[in-house]
C-alpha cells in the first residue's frame, strides 16, 4: 500500500489560494490519487481524483507531477466554510481505502 504524508495543519485567510501537498513516494503504476474533505461530525466528501498531470473541477484543482510521487490539492479563494480536514488517499484495485491523518485547514477572516 502506498503510504501518504501530508501536513498536520495549515492556516489561511479568506480569499487566498490554498495548496496542500501530499507525498506518496511508493505510488504504483495503477494507483489513483484521491482527495476528500471532512467537516466535524460528518462523513468525508469526495473532492477530486487524478492519475497524472492536472485535473480541475468546480471545487478544486489537483496537480500531479510526472513522477507522481506527490500531489497538490489547490483550493482557489478559500472562504470560512472551507475550514475542514483534507485527506489524501492513494487507491488501486487492491487498496482497502485507508485514510491517513489528514490536514486540518483553518481559514481565518
Amino acid at each position, binding site marked *: 500500500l502506498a503510504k501518504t504524508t501530508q501536513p498536520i495543519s495549515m492556516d489561511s485567510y479568506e480569499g487566498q489560494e490554498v495548496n496542500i501537498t501530499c507525498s506518496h513516494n511508493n505510488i504504483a503504476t495503477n494507483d489513483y490519487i484521491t482527495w476528500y474533505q471532512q467537516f466535524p461530525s*460528518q*462523513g468525508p466528501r*469526495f473532492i477530486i*481524483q487524478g492519475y497524472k498531470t492536472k485535473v480541475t473541477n468546480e471545487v478544486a484543482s489537483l496537480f500531479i507531477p510526472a513522477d507522481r510521487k506527490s500531489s497538490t490539492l489547490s483550493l482557489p479563494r478559500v472562504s470560512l466554510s472551507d475550514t475542514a480536514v483534507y*485527506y489524501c488517499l492513494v487507491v488501486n484495485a487492491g487498496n482497502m481505502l485507508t485514510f491517513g491523518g489528514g490536514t486540518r485547514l483553518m481559514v481565518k477572516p
Partner: protein
Amino acid sequence: SQTIHQWPATLVQPVGSPLSLECTVEGTSNPNLYWYRQAAGRGLQLLFYSVGIGQISSEVPQNLSASRPQDRQFILSSKKLLLSDSGFYLCAWSRDRVDSPLHFGNGTRLTVT
C-alpha cells in the same frame, strides 16, 4: 441518484451491552461497502469491507463484527461493548471500480458509558 442511509445518528450504550448499526444504500447494485471508525480528533480507521453478500473482510481484530445479509445492507454488531468502542462510525459505499470514490453516510456517534 444513489443515497446512503445510516442510523441511528447518536447512541449511548452501557459497557457490556450489544450493538447493532445499520447501513443501507439505494440507487445502485452490488456496491462495495465499508465500515470506518473515527476516534475524537483522529483519522478514519477501516474496520470492515465487503465486495458482495456474505463476503466480509476485517481489517482490525476486535469485538466488532459485520454482516451483509442483502446486497445493499451492511450491519455492524457487537455482543458486548467496551469503553474503547466509543467513536464516530461511518458507513460508505463505492462502485467496484478502482477509480470509484467513496460515498459516506452521515455517521453514528456512539458513546459507551
